[in-house]
């Protein structure tokens, strides 16, 4: 997840908890007029803690996508309140993504290993989160092969099935076999064996401050 990379990443567990809190609390208070206190505080806290690049990208998404949906909501319901609520919901979702999506996959895996999470789960999460670029490459390859063979457009269901889906899944099966062999070759085992985590991540005062700041923003909305 290097799309939202930051110099001093948060502890993955803290980022996960804060991200979930921002999304859930933001969606709950989205209909309140003063919900913007919470989102502004979250944005300022994220800016202070180094997530300015992520905030810029999220801001663009909020303006474009949130704007479209808010416009639709305004014309559908005929009130500014509905549009404002839609904007607040998008703020909650997009701001909740900032902390979590800035965590590197390998850091999250190390954090879960420190917490003694089962190896099946850490391995699967690592692969699921970091495999997306490979999938895109494979789809592009299969489509290139389709064009080379003159197979036709993917709007035809038969061509979609025969020329895209089948070769794609076949490629995935081969890749998974190779990947599994590669993982085993590097000494990875599923059984509980003693291990040492390389570059463990610990909760510091830096992370506690981040969490308390987010909670403080929530308290502002509740108390004011």
């Amino acid at each position, binding site marked *: 997840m290097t799309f939202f990379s930051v110099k001093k990443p948060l502890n993955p567990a803290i980022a996960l908890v804060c991200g979930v809190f921002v999304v859930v609390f933001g969606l709950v208070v989205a209909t309140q007029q003063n919900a913007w206190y919470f989102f502004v505080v979250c944005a300022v806290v994220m800016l202070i803690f180094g997530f300015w690049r992520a905030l810029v990208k999220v801001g663009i998404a909020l303006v474009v996508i949130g704007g479209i949906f808010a416009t639709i909501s305004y014309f559908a319901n005929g009130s500014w309140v509905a549009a404002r609520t839609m904007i607040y919901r998008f703020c909650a979702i997009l701001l909740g993504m900032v902390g*979590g999506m800035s965590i590197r996959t390998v850091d999250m895996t190390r954090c879960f290993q420190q917490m003694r999470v089962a190896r099946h789960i850490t391995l699967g999460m690592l*692969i699921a989160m970091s495999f997306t670029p490979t999938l895109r490459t494979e789809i592009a390859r299969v489509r290139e092969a389709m064009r080379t063979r003159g197979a036709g457009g993917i709007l035809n269901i038969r061509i979609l099935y025969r020329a895209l889906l089948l070769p794609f899944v076949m490629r995935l099966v081969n890749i998974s076999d190779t990947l599994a062999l590669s993982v085993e070759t590097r000494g990875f085992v599923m059984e509980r064996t003693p291990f040492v985590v390389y570059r463990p991540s610990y909760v510091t005062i830096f992370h506690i401050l981040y969490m308390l700041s987010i909670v403080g923003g929530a308290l502002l909305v509740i108390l004011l």
Partner: protein
Amino acid sequence: MQTNDKCAQLNTCTSARDAKAAVVATNTQQDSANIEVLVSHITANAATAHPYVASSTGRDKSAFRRFGISDVVFLAIMAACMLLSGAVMPLITQVPLFGIIQLCLGLQFSIFPAIGLMKVRKVGALCFMALFSGIVLVFMFPPMFVCLLACAVISELFTIVLFRNYGKNIACAFASALYMPLTLPFLYVWIRFFYTVEDKAQAGQAVNAYVGGDVWIAIGMSVAVLAVCVLGATIGVKIAKELKKAGVIKK
């Protein structure tokens, strides 16, 4: 070393790997042939004697088997496919129509689980896929992660009750077809709770707000979701069968 001694040694082997290592030590072709037959017997005995043998074979009668590395890797890749194909979910969650999320995601969330279950025919495979795909959903829409995980568990429970294991193709199709439609009642509960917390004045009218005042829309959407998921499960099973015929997915 005499053949009888080697066979006696092989009888003490508890895994196919040890047995095959012993086969390498033979020095006559006849001995190798005899020992290979013995190895196949030992492997069959080991599989039935130890219910937690990590193998990906299909039609074992035991319900619960341990997952190997290749199983977890394949399930994780299928989960990644589900995630990639479900990238539009954050936009769809804001559309005020009951079941729209399930309708848009139903096809891909039944094709890939079906393929995953057809290759890894073990109880818990669907739960693993839900967990691996849900870890990213936690950041986008946490209730959906909880929904998907709970529905994977329920879907597997139904499958175990009806079919006992994933030995039959129909069991794989059933589990993957049931997976997404089960999120509909959870969605109903979430919307009801969500609007109750948000605005007490709308308590009890949550579903109506999404359905537009007509319960037949909700019923129609539910039927459509079920149809899409059954279609997806059928396609997934068909793909897996073709791959098995081609020798890509081994028994």
